[in-house]
């Protein structure tokens, strides 16, 4: 690991007069998969959007690849996947990917289609794809051009278990190639695929640790249970959550 790819400290984001993130701090580095876990409404997307440089009303310290979030240097090296698929539904899969590649100065798609398992759909219009396929086009659009920093907002949601496992394997490969990955999910069970996890609840970071440390500290291998024990041990009352259904959704 060569220093942190992203560092943040005292990061506060307000939306509609309400704080969505309450002075959170943390960091993650290149060459590893960092998971961002927490229930829906915990502030995962807001944190990712802040790092991507598209979130308004961000206060605090935030350094991305040694530069301010959203700066031209950062954008040249960033791949961002929004939570709901953001591709052009009136373009084919390949046309979508070529466009996003060309914006990063790349004219080759490489093996990205086979890596997300979309080779058979290459020439199909995005609007004719299933939800899961569309999510993978959106993921692939973040991967083309080999960005050094990948911010992936719930890339595995709604996919079948086999495909989810393959994607986590892909994330590990990308990290092994030297990329820094921040991958969010509300399925706590997926924490085991990460090198490190950041646990977010009610706009506050409960902990940042490796899955092994999490299991040790809470005395359970069950990630859902570990999360619950962490909340109980954190002194944050359950009711302190500002939004969301409280307990995470099951896989």
């Amino acid at each position, binding site marked *: 690991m060569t220093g942190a790819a992203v560092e943040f400290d005292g990061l506060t984001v307000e939306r509609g007069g309400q704080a969505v993130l309450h002075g959170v701090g943390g960091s993650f580095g290149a060459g590893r998969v960092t998971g961002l876990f927490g229930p829906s409404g915990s502030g995962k997307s807001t944190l990712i959007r802040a790092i991507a440089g*598209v979130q308004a009303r961000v206060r605090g310290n935030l350094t991305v690849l040694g530069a301010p979030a959203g700066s031209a240097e950062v954008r040249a090296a960033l791949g*961002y996947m929004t939570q709901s698929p953001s591709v052009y539904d009136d373009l084919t899969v390949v046309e979508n990917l070529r466009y996003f590649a060309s914006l990063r100065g790349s004219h080759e798609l490489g093996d990205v289609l086979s890596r997300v398992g979309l080779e058979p759909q290459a020439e199909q219009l995005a609007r004719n794809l299933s939800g899961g396929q569309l999510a993978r086009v959106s993921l692939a659009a973040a991967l083309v051009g080999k960005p050094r920093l990948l911010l992936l907002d719930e890339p595995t949601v709604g996919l079948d278990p086999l495909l989810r496992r393959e994607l986590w394997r892909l994330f590990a490969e990308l990290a092994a190639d030297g990329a820094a990955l921040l991958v969010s999910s509300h399925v706590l069970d997926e924490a085991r695929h990460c090198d490190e996890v950041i646990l977010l609840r009610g706009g506050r970071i409960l902990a940042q640790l490796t899955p092994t440390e999490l299991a040790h500290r809470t005395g359970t291998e069950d990630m859902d249970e570990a999360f619950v024990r962490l909340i109980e041990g954190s002194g944050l009352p359950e009711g302190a959550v500002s939004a969301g259904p409280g307990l995470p959704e099951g896989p």
Partner: protein
Amino acid sequence: MSPARTFATARRVLTQLRHDPRTIALLILVPCLLETLLRLIYANRLRVFDQAGAPLLAFFPLTTVFLVTSIALQRERVSGTLERLMTTPLGRLDLLAGYAVAFGLLAAVQASVVSALTLGPLGLHVEGPVALVVVLAVCVALLGTGLGLLASAFARTEFQVVQFFPLIIMPQLLLCGLLIPRQRMPSALYAISDILPLSYAVDGMHHLSHQPGTSGALLGDIAIVLAFAAGALLVGAATLRRRTE
């Protein structure tokens, strides 16, 4: 600004259109139908057709490109593609220039076909060079891109964006000199028409109708339309925010 990213964006927008042949057909055939209608309505008063037919050639690209741009950008906002674009090296002006290039080309095709029909079989008489009719139409299309972009910035939904059409385009149509010459309007309205870009496009078409060759007044009108287009695109670029709530 990056020519490569502008070109990539223009290509992407045109590819989207190519997958939608029905829209292309409507964009090109509807103005043909309207010019034909006008010709039939004034079958016994061809002078009126000559008066109104040419200005309409400038009006069509404004309406088409305004609607196409404002809805396309509204869709980019809603679908999240705009947010994604804002995290790439694409500059805001690259994005707008890409749209302007794509829709400028579309307008060139539209104007060529509609002019060929209107000046040919329909018999509209134009003294000036026909190529400049197409040039003026393309300039108006760039204006349409800029105004459409502005409208999309102030609209939250596609319903709202469509409602900007009667607000932004219709007053220009009423005041541009198509219904009555601008000089004969009440002075307050004349003053207002002076700050509306379509007035200059229509003036330009009048020059093309009545004067052979390329007059300075015509080039002046074209320059003013282009200046309005550039202004609208720049203000539109300022309304595109990288960071949103």
